[in-house]
């Protein structure tokens, strides 16, 4: 029997992806089921792409963003936060666990925090179980 492991897609913004690199440099260990996609800014991630990731077989989607307090004048992370909160409400309505989409505040020097947070998230997603959207949508009642 094949042991199921959660598959997590992480959209990392420019700054926090160097935080993810930091985790590698400093030798922190974090689960290998997180696949990172580097994007210029977390606010560029279209929520449709998050939904698409879930459709294509991801069990959870993670967005890492700069902390809004660290930005100078405008905070694009605020947009990301609002979008994620809206998307979670929508997922909750259609009957998908809302904890499958998360936001994580990571600065460029916080490799350790990234590693520990991701391990925690992987454990939580393991408890939620596989999403199996394809199975749910294709199965006939």
């Amino acid at each position, binding site marked *: 029997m094949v042991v199921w492991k959660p598959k997590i897609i992480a959209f990392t913004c420019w700054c926090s992806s160097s935080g993810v690199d930091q985790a590698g440099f400093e030798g922190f260990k974090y689960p290998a089921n997180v696949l990172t996609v580097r994007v210029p800014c977390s606010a560029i991630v279209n929520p449709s792409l998050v939904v698409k990731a879930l459709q294509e077989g991801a069990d959870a989607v993670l967005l890492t963003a700069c902390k809004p*307090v660290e930005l100078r004048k405008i905070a694009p992370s*605020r947009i990301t936060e609002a979008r994620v909160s*809206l998307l979670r409400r*929508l997922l909750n309505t*259609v*009957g998908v666990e809302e904890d499958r989409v998360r936001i994580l505040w990571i600065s460029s020097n916080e490799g350790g925090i990234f590693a520990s947070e991701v391990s925690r998230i992987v454990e939580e997603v393991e408890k939620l179980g596989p999403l199996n959207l394809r199975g749910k*949508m*294709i199965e006939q009642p």
Partner: protein
Amino acid sequence: MSSPETELRRLARSLLEKKAVDLVIGYEKSEAGVRPCFISEPNEAERLVWNPDCRLSLVRYLRGFKEKRVGIIVKGCDGRAIVELIKENQLDRRSTFIIAVECNGVYKPVKYGSSKLGRQIAEYCEKCEVRISPIRDHLIKSDVKALERPSPKNDGEPLDWLSLFRKCLRCMACVRSCPFCYCTECSIEGFKPALVHKLVDPVELFTFHLTRALHMAGRCVECGACESSCPVEIPLTRLYHELNEWFREKYGYVPGVNLEQAPPPLVFKEGEKP
């Protein structure tokens, strides 16, 4: 007092005779109830009708007549749609003459073959609070008593949305009938590779409906155009209502009620931090 229908015809005739408008968009009688009609001659104004079958939103047609002065017959929800479209710079208020008719709710569409007796008011009309368009040039009051409204159902019972999405035929009738789906390049069909293909992978229906819901969030005026044009009767308005509730809770914003209030995603206050 004359009936709203007579008043509507008289108004449309006088507007066209005075050349205040080039065209009046309204409803006319057809075999299946009513259908939209475009009237440009004063003596054609007798074709206009007004009854609880006029559920279709005519705002969709306004963008096709950008060069003309258009008179349009609107219900409360259609008026809200016009307000939202003006905010999004899609309509010119000066070239539109808005004839608001007091709406008492519309009937659900008749299923093919079923009788027309004992028809029910649509579900989205039960929740409606705006019966008269918030923006108008002329108001026609209706003297008919409000349609029989069943006691407001508690819509707490959750629907099995995944199995409802499974029924979807991808006919795009919801997209084509919606007053807000005006993008010339639709993000659902326009991406390369496409976000949703027009093939038969059922799992893409999930992405399609969630994307559409996300695009309607904070804009949907719950006119029910998508729901009543859906051939498999997916109660889409209920899904969009849920997201509008999020906007109401977070920003206190109700789409289409106030012309001065900008949509929250477009507003940014300096120094605003979560």
